[in-house]
């Protein structure tokens, strides 16, 4: 296949090669070998290896995983907790569902290694309630891991004990945000709080807590097996390893692809997605999901690289790429995205709760043909306020798509202004 040269299957190598219900097949494909190696090392050694690998979190914020682990290790307080964030709700993303449904033990092995390194005894996998198949597969996999002695008391005779519990969500996007997730586990409505302190020092039940995304944990066994140094050679200097890409929208071959970091968005769309159907042209692409930026066709050569993207105030987030062709009405899409956030806002803070309501009113004025220059100015100030003053990432990121459209497709708004009042 033509796409061979740009896909790099590390996390997805076992997909469809093993039966996800069989721990023996996972083991026969090199599974749990990294755990065995890890149990012979100290926590510091493992964390150093992860720091050397330069792995960054795959849940959206790209925070260095080794540094997070080190903070948890050094934090005072016990018990400490580890949480795998499998709440995947960012529209356009489906990678974590595939990771759970196709290779559940890879995640479990990653969590156990991290927990051992930071000396944590209790872990959770927080899975969104809609993912019923994934929940069942993960439950079964945990049970198998216990039977084999990879979980539970005295793991593989190492003297270390650890177990994992599954927590299922009940339908709320904001619960993927780490503080909202923590209070949900504590049995409250998922509403975030101010930071700092961060979960690494004050997380679940105010105890030090390591929270990472599913894909982040999946990288851990590979880092241990190949060594941090080797891992850091994959990708670019600022973004190491591979990235799972959830490709969707107006595209011939939508699907999940694993690429080396540093690959360009254009290559992903053309070589893996096989381009746009019906001989249409690309109008714009949203990167990361609903909270990600929208960029025009002429910027698609940008590479998946944290540093390069940051120069343009962009990021690849959790790796969704949503392609939209030239039939799509930009404002209609922005309204849909804003409605999503409006529905998902927890309502705790004013900039987000009221800001989203006002954004929808203002966007309507543009589509209704009654917007003025003042409306545009007001919209921009409002969005800036939301970025700055919202308590959590939901409200801070909700305006990003609209702001990027104003940056790259300003005429979509100015064309619709009907009068220049004062």
């Amino acid at each position: 296949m033509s796409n061979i040269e740009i896909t790099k299957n590390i996390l997805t190598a076992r997909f469809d090669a093993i039966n996800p219900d069989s721990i023996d097949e996972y083991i026969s494909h090199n599974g749990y070998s990294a755990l065995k190696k890890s149990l012979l090392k100290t926590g510091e050694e493992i964390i150093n290896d992860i720091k050397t690998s330069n792995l960054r979190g795959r849940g959206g914020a790209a925070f260095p995983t080794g540094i997070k682990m080190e903070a948890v290790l050094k934090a005072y307080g016990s018990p400490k907790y580890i949480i795998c964030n499998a709440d995947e709700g960012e529209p356009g993303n489906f990678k974590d569902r595939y990771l759970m449904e196709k290779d559940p033990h890879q995640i479990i092995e990653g969590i156990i290694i991290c927990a051992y390194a930071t000396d944590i005894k209790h872990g959770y996998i927080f899975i969104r309630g809609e993912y019923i198949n994934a929940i069942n597969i993960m439950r079964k996999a945990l049970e198998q891991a216990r039977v084999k002695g990879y979980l539970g008391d005295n793991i593989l005779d190492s003297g270390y004990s650890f177990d994992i519990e599954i927590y299922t969500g009940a339908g709320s996007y904001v619960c993927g945000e780490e503080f909202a997730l923590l209070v949900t586990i504590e049995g409250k409505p998922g509403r975030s709080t101010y930071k700092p302190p961060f979960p690494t020092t004050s997380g679940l039940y105010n105890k030090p807590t390591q929270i990472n995304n599913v894909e982040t944990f999946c990288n851990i066994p590979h880092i241990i097996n190949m060594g941090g140094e080797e891992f850091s050679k994959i990708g670019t200097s600022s973004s190491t390893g591979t990235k799972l890409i959830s490709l969707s929208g107006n595209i011939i071959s939508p699907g999940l692809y694993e690429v080396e970091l540093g690959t360009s968005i254009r290559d992903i769309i053309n070589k893996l997605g096989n381009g746009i159907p019906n001989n249409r042209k690309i109008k714009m692409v949203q990167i990361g999901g609903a909270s990600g930026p929208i960029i025009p066709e002429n910027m698609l050569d940008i590479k998946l690289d944290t540093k390069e993207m940051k120069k343009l105030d962009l990021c690849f987030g959790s790796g969704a790429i949503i392609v939209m062709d030239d039939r799509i009405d930009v404002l209609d899409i922005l309204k849909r995205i804003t409605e999503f956030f409006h529905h998902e806002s927890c309502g705790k803070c004013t900039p987000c709760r009221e800001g989203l309501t006002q954004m929808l009113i203002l966007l309507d004025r543009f589509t209704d043909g009654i917007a003025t220059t003042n409306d545009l100015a007001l919209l921009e100030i409002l969005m800036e306020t939301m970025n700055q003053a919202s308590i959590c990432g939901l409200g801070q990121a909700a305006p990003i798509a609209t702001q990027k459209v104003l940056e790259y497709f300003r005429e979509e708004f100015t064309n619709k202004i009907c009068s220049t009042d004062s």
Partner: protein
Amino acid sequence: MLVKEALDKYGKTPDKLIGAMLAYQKSTLCNYLTEEDIKEFAKETKIPESRIYSIASFYSLLSMKERGKYIVMVCYDVPCYINGSVNVVNELEKILEIKMGQTTTDKLFTIEYSSCLGCCDKAPALQIGATLYGNLTPEKISSILSTYRGKKDE
């Protein structure tokens, strides 16, 4: 299932509450929690009724409105939206003769909007129970509904 049974199975501590509420709701015929249920949860767990109520109203998988046996969750986020989720909604409304958010008179189906179902590679998508259905067409939608109609007397 009784509220008490759900709590006995899942545990009465706050961290087990949402799981118990979901399991209990699923066991009710009409997929929702009544005010009596909320009171019962509060009594059994000794968690304030207001907190139980706020949980029931916060999470979209929990409902305090009577619903059908099968909840048809239609994804309406951008990848599905640009692949025709509007047509999916129209088709469902036509076949079931109800509007979005309503329940059929035989109490079999409720149609609801859903956030992204993680099935955007097969957009447009919907989910009923544990099953995801993607690449929806009008024909596919009507055949999906008839399989559930067939299960009626199970």
